[in-house]
């Protein structure tokens, strides 16, 4: 499944990044960082062309040699990024979509926790568990 899951605040700073434990975790941080430009571009094009995508799911942002990066932006401009391995060919678009949906639901539940201050880093265990389930099954 996913090798990296990230949540980015509307002001574009990371709220949560989780990667599989490897020696080059920093590379994933870099990948997530670079995809922000692509997200920005896709979101700002909404409303300009007639065949725009008004869905929250943005689809494949860009493929690299080893990974595919998918994006999702909520109405409140919080960005979710999921990175999967390119070799993982049986991952369908629909599955990714469902993963984002689960992630979004978990995020909303987390935000409704009175002990969380909006804009803070995510430390919720429930949210952690949801992400865990996306990462492990391999």
């Amino acid at each position, binding site marked *: 499944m996913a090798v990296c899951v990230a949540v980015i605040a509307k002001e574009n700073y990371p709220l949560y990044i989780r990667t599989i434990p490897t020696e080059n975790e920093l590379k994933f941080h870099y990948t997530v960082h670079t995809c922000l430009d692509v997200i920005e571009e896709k979101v700002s094009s*909404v409303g300009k062309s007639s065949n725009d995508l008004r869905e929250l799911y943005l689809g494949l942002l860009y493929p690299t040699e080893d990974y595919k990066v998918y994006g999702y932006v*909520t*109405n*409140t401009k919080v960005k979710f990024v999921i990175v999967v391995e390119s070799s993982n060919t049986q991952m369908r678009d629909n599955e990714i979509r469902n993963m984002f949906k689960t992630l979004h639901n978990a995020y909303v539940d987390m*935000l409704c926790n009175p002990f969380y201050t909006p804009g803070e880093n995510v430390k919720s265990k429930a949210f952690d568990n949801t992400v865990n389930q996306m990462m492990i099954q391999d």
Partner: protein
Amino acid sequence: MADDFIFDFLHMEIVNFVQRTTSPDDKDKVISKLEQMGYRVGQSLIEKFTRESPRFSSELDIIKFVCKDLWNGVYKKQVDNLRTNHQGVYVLQDNKFRLLTQMSSGKQYMEAAPQYLAFPCGLIRGGLANLGVNCVVTAEVSTMPACKFQVMIQRT
């Protein structure tokens, strides 16, 4: 049946509680406390309500969402009238504002109205802020239970 009124009663108690725990000569503090509560609630609420809705294309789209969906979710009705000058000022008019209907239908208790409108103002402001629209929200009552909310967008 009863769950329709739970929020109303809770809100009355919140106002009551904040009033009791703040010194009586500090009326502004009561208002600002209630407004802040509304802000936090609005932030979470809008996150929940916009979960399924498609992406908004414009500011007006966002305001319309507040008038329809947010109002429906919180007050079980829609805003009766929305007016704008197309320069960042929107006036949302509700002819039978839910939180005021229990109080009076006339001029009685007029001076108490601001306390009961602070939370809703914060709610709108918090919701809009989370959607990326920074604004100032003020409320205005001429005859209860009608109420006007003025949303002034802050552009930087």
